[in-house]
């Protein structure tokens, strides 16, 4: 250590070893970013001219009018809550067997690929696309929204529950197997207690998401508060729309807050 000629330098190894490749990737990323910002073609004169109109539009929201459309708002909120509760419960109910079938440490390979397939299909479509499809399929109204949200819940809930099941401790489940427990008992004693807190947390989280999505789904014809909001916009009743938005925001906050408390209690 005293001999300086022996001192060795050290540098962190770069993620991409080849220097040419590395710098051309950096250059490419910067060039692409530059080009994509240029495709916006912002006409600043039009923006300037549009500002007063935007101001008028925003002014239309104030003050929010809760009164003239109050009945529709209440109906819409109740319908959304109904959709949320029903779709969360049904979605979770279907998710549990799918998750068990998709967990590598539990399921037989044939079941495994089938259940993974269900999850993949459910996850590959956004709620809006599903809603458009189901509205065409079942007609306008909350039933289409309910089916949409239930279907979307499966992809979310089953996927995350599967991961949790795969992370369970082998020794705990082995110990239950060693007692001579049958398959159902093994799931009930060896697996379920390990994943229960996460299941409750995920369920509440999904309830949260489903309420927010129910507002979106309504816009494309799936019923609920989203439909009310859409109608308000179509009639240029921006003050009522503002009231609806405030109601949605308040409920989302409330749901998020309470589910946060419950999740903390459980975990």
């Amino acid at each position, binding site marked *: 250590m005293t001999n300086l000629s022996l001192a060795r330098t050290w540098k962190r190894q770069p993620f991409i070893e080849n220097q040419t490749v590395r710098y051309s990737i950096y250059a490419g990323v910067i060039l692409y970013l530059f080009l994509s910002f240029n495709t916006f073609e912002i006409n600043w004169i039009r923006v300037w001219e549009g500002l007063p109109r935007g101001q008028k539009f925003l002014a239309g929201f104030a003050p929010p009018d809760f009164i003239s459309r109050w009945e529709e708002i209440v109906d819409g909120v109740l319908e959304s809550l109904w959709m949320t509760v029903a779709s969360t419960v049904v979605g979770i109910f279907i998710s549990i067997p799918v998750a068990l079938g998709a967990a590598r440490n539990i399921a037989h390979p044939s079941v495994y690929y089938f259940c993974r397939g269900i999850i993949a299909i459910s996850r590959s479509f956004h709620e809006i696309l599903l809603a458009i499809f189901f509205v065409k399929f079942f007609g306008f109204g909350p039933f289409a929204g309910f089916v949409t949200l239930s279907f979307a819940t499966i992809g979310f809930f089953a996927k995350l529950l599967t991961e949790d099941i795969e992370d369970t401790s082998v020794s705990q489940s082995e110990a239950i197997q060693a007692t001579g427990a049958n398959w*159902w008992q093994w799931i009930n004693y060896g697996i379920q207690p390990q994943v229960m807190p996460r299941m409750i947390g995920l369920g509440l989280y999904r309830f949260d998401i489903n309420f927010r999505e129910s507002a979106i789904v309504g816009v494309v014809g799936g019923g609920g508060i989203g439909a009310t909001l859409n109608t308000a916009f179509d009639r240029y009743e921006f003050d009522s729309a503002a009231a609806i938005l405030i109601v949605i925001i308040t409920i989302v906050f409330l749901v998020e807050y309470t589910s946060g408390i419950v999740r903390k209690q459980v975990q």
Partner: protein
Amino acid sequence: MLRLEALHKRYATGEVALTGVDLEVPKGQVMALIGPSGAGKSTLIRCVNRLVPPTGGRIFFNNEDVTRLSSRKLLKMRRQMGMIFQEFALVERLSVMENVLSGRLGYVGFWRSFLRKFPQSDIDEAFRLLKRIGLDHMVDKRADELSGGQRQRVGIARALIQDPQLLLVDEPTASLDPKTSRQIMRLICELAHERNLACVINIHDVPLAKMFAQRVVGLRLGEIVYDGTPEGLNDDVLTEIYGEEDWHINKYAPKAAQQESSWDEEDTEEPAAMAS
């Protein structure tokens, strides 16, 4: 009572854990299975209740071939074999009572177990066992609230409530302090003796094995290299099981006692010597 014939296990990875093991354990015998890590001790006892399916040979339990049982019969067979685990393997989010009663799962139907409505006789037996291991005041505690020694005692109760004829014990003391280790080993051996159970205990701790077992079997690379009394475990035998090692002399010991800093010097010397 338990007889292994040419038991062979090759894992899917290609690793061979057991290369034709023959072993017979009579009723009431406490047998220690010792050997280095990776010798196949865990695999051996897991083959017996088929948590790990053997790839060759046969296992006879009360003259019935375990390796050919249908899955339904296997569940019945597993009731006869209590298992005690390294790191206890209690279901952590279940209560002490639920963990003990889970030993009865092979005897009760799904709905009874699901609703936690076990027969009164099972509950009586659970209380009796919990009293015996000194934990009857902790019935409703969650398993993860217990200390290591307490958890292992619950693990023992779970195995015994199965009313087994054989105990398979996998490193019961691996995460316990020396005093608790002795207490746990004593408890296992006492209970095995009371009920006249055969007992196969995997154990790393050779002195503990000598202290409690009636018979010691040494396993190396999936092969039995010693089978005899605890007294017969001399240095040559230990070398045969574990490989070349000086079993008594520690040349650093006196120096370390004289001055503490000597540790650092020795540490830096070691790698240098190995590199040259």
